[in-house]
């Protein structure tokens, strides 16, 4: 059940990376919010800043190259960027994340048992061993893991890809969090396993009233699973809104191009894709970052970055095409 | 926004020069690497011009002047004199020649052999050639390299060439192994497979396809090795197995000066500092190269 309280609110977030060649200005004043119990999708092509966004929220950005500039990330009403220590503490307590590659996510030198019990021990050092064991088995059973005992004593290389991701999900949900961030959880898995894992996630999140941000290439799954969706391009949010609405009537030219590029079983088949390439983050375009490729690009798009225009029905678009439609639907 | 065709064509036409410029840019961004390069260049110049630059060049041969023996460093003898009255600085400069020379000689002896064997073994993987070569490396790596070098050198007449030979005997297996593992990982590259399918001869594949791509790690290793080889060579001449007296060698100068410690400390200390400087230069240079080629630290 989605409530109105905003669990997470990202305001005007700026994240950049200092690299040898210069500064990569990835996130440039990005905004995003997630309400309690809501499942939010985040879609966009590779390299558009989705992972940076999630890692920024989870406070696990590698801080030597990465830097957080302006902006606020409000979690449960408190700006976690403001007070370093307290902010991180809140995030560790209330936010969890699973990564794209389950093999890289699990320490190859430790058993699943060690990994999971370390999480439990860190949360409650005084938990008796028996209770820990029971919790671990229970967590594995919750993710439909066959032969939980055997898995506990295994190393990650002894498990299949799907099993590894289940372990990751189990670990992520060992502590009772409010928000789960899922960064392309099925991209490195077999297509046959993909649906299983996504259904599992859907189930777990819905049952426990958690909120979730799901980043995925599998547009079909995003459409099925999420309440609201954000479309991201080169570090900026292109548009957002209720999932059904966005998928049925994409407003931003990029979103339209994206959906058109998706192979369909009916109609056009495989299309040509969107002409051009994503811009360099070293010297991003002055105005709208999509404008160089945009089939409907206007002069103002190249010069000034479009603000977010709020339309009816919770639709928001960052595109000058809709400047005059504020308050109505075209 | 779109590059005009002419410009983009020009850019594609000089990939090698651009790559070199980029690598130089990266190399020179690290002041330590530049320092290493400067030190090495300086040392090489000093070695080549040793007899010209040295204040007392004849002291590097047979020379006796007991009236000036064991003098502390002064304006006339910048590094002092030794027990025979010889100017230590001049001897150090000539000794520098031998040190650098031995490093080059060892590499010249061991690298071509080692790389060739490793290339052949890597190319003919899983055949008896592979086994024979790699097992030989096991044999030569069974005892610590310095010990092997000592044995080989001592069995012949101790001297410059045999010291280098000894070290080279212990050194070549490392290059064989490195080249072998490089070839093994490169063999999966598509262009190798295409060459094989296209019917290229084995030599062509080894020399023209695989080897050029293995050059950077080998080259980096060579510069990192120089320092170690020079330390080993000076350790050997410390015990008398290198360049023979009266020719100066940094290691033997340190050893000779030991009996005068601590009073006439300069006899041992300055040659030792020279060794440190040489190794420092090559190590900084090697580290800089490694950073540029982004090789893992070994």
């Amino acid at each position: 059940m989605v409530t109105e309280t905003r669990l997470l609110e990202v305001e005007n977030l700026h994240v950049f990376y200092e690299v040898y060649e210069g500064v990569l200005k990835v996130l440039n004043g990005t905004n995003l919010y997630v309400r309690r119990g809501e499942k939010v999708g985040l879609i966009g092509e590779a390299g558009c800043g989705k992972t940076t966004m999630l890692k920024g929220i989870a406070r696990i950005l590698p801080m030597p190259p990465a830097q957080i500039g302006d902006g606020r990330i409000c979690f449960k009403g408190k700006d976690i960027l403001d007070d370093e220590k307290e902010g991180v503490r809140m995030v560790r307590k209330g936010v969890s994340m699973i990564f794209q590659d389950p093999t890289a996510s699990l320490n190859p030198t430790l058993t699943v048992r060690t990994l999971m019990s370390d999480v439990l021990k860190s949360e409650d050092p005084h938990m008796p061993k028996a209770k820990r064991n029971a919790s671990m088995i229970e967590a594995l059973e919750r993710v439909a893991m066959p032969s939980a005992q055997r898995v506990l004593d295994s190393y990650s290389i002894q498990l299949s890809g799907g099993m590894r991701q289940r372990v990751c999900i189990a670990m992520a949900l060992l502590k009772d969090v409010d928000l789960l961030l899922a960064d392309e959880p099925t991209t490195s898995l077999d297509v046959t396993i993909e649906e299983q894992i996504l259904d599992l996630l859907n189930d777990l999140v819905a049952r426990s009233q958690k909120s979730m941000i799901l980043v995925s290439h599998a547009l079909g799954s995003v459409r099925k699973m999420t309440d609201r969706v954000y479309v991201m391009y080169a570090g900026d949010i292109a548009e957002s809104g209720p999932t059904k609405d966005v998928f049925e009537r994409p407003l931003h030219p990029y979103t339209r191009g994206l959906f058109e590029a998706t192979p369909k079983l009916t109609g056009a088949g495989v299309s040509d894709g969107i002409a051009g390439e994503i811009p360099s983050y070293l010297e991003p375009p002055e105005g709208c970052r999509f404008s160089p490729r945009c089939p409907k690009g206007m002069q103002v798009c190249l010069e000034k970055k479009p603000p977010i225009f709020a339309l009816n029905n919770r639709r928001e678009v960052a595109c000058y095409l809709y400047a005059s439609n504020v308050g109505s639907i075209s | 926004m779109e590059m005009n065709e002419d410009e983009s064509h020009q850019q594609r036409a000089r990939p090698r020069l651009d790559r070199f410029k980029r690598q130089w840019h990266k190399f020179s961004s690290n002041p330590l690497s530049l320092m290493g390069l400067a030190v090495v260049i300086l040392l090489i110049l000093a070695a080549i011009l040793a007899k010209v630059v040295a204040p007392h060049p004849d002291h590097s041969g047979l020379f006796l002047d007991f009236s000036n023996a064991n003098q502390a460093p002064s304006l006339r003898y910048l590094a002092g004199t030794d027990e025979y009255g010889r100017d230590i600085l001049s001897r150090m400069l000539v000794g520098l020649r031998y040190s650098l020379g031995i490093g080059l000689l060892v590499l010249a002896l061991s690298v071509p052999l080692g790389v060739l064997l490793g290339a052949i073994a890597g190319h003919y993987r899983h055949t008896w050639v592979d086994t024979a070569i790699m097992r030989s490396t096991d044999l030569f790596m069974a005892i610590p390299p310095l010990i092997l070098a000592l044995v080989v050198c001592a069995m012949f007449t101790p001297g410059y060439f045999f010291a280098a030979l000894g070290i080279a005997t212990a050194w070549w297996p490392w290059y064989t192994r490195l080249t072998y593992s490089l070839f093994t990982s490169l063999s999966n590259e598509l262009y190798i497979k295409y060459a094989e399918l296209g019917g290229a001869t084995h030599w062509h594949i080894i020399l023209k396809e695989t080897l050029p791509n293995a050059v950077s790690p080998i080259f980096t290793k060579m510069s990192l090795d120089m320092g170690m080889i020079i330390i080993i060579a000076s350790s050997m001449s410390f015990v008398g197995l290198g360049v023979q007296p009266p020719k100066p060698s940094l290691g033997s100068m340190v050893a000779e000066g030991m009996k005068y410690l601590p009073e006439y400390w300069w006899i041992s200390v300055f040659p030792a500092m020279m060794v440190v400087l040489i190794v420092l230069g090559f190590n900084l240079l090697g580290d800089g190269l490694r950073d540029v080629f982004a090789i893992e630290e070994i």
Partner: protein
Amino acid sequence: MQNMALFILRRIGYGLLVLLSLSFVVLSFIRLIPGDPVRMSLGPTASEKVVREVRSELYLDRPIPVQYFYWLRGVLRHGDFGKSLFTHRAVSKDIAEFLPRSMELAACSALLILVFGVLLGTLSALFRDTWLDNLLRFFAYLGVVTPPYAIAIFFLLLFAFYWKFFPIGGMPAFPEELRVTGMLTFDALIEGRFPLFFDSLWHLILPAVSLSLGSIAYQARIHRSSMIDNINKDYISFARVVGVRKTTLTLKHLMKPSFIPTLTIFGLQVAALLGNAFLIEVIFRYPGFSRYSLQVIMTKDPYGIVAVTMVFGIVFALVNILLDVGVAWLDPRVRLQAPE
């Protein structure tokens, strides 16, 4: 477990094969090189007859394979490594006397390398780019570029001559009745002779530190970069984001995989240790095996050289097997791969 035992056995078997081949190669090599070690050791005044007798006694007048056969038979049957032309007694006696002393020194140095190398490397990695890191890296660099004999002389000058803190060299006399393992420090300790124990330790410190300093520096650099590589790995971020405490994260999750390259390099450090020991033993007048080795090598003593080569080979092989086992224990990927 079974895999491990088989693994070790195979390695030992192969190691023996290599060493056997090596012994043959070395013996042949000595025979083939021109020069007469017998004449050299007996001196120019010894008569031709005596020289021939000694040569025959040592099988040096027989064809190489025959000599080798007799040598091998002696080794396998009686542990007889032949007679040394240098000490004029059984080589096995030489080994028994000198080897434990060097083992003492080597063990001490190896311990220093592992402990301080890892400790300093860890500190450097955890406090990356701070003044502590830069200081440690600076000294580590100095340690790597300075030859061991220079380090030894430096320490000698500073701590033995200048500040008269440590003795200049040598070792306290070894009372015969104490000889259990042959390692003075250890034997004195287990027999409860504490003054002797401390005296021996005091003599051991400077040589051990001189021998190990370069390796400590190198080890610290490797461990530091290993930890820094792993700090950015996904499995560390993941463990952090699902809630593992920072201390556990660093001491267990980060350390364990970081140890793998460290242990691998440690093998090379031991090789360097064994190789450089003779320098230290000469400078500090330490009555050890490496100094003996140098002497037999310089005098071209055939059986001495072969025995010395064997001993170094065996020690080195054992250490490597141990390290391989260690790496296999740390990294299940090694253990669980099917043997090639």
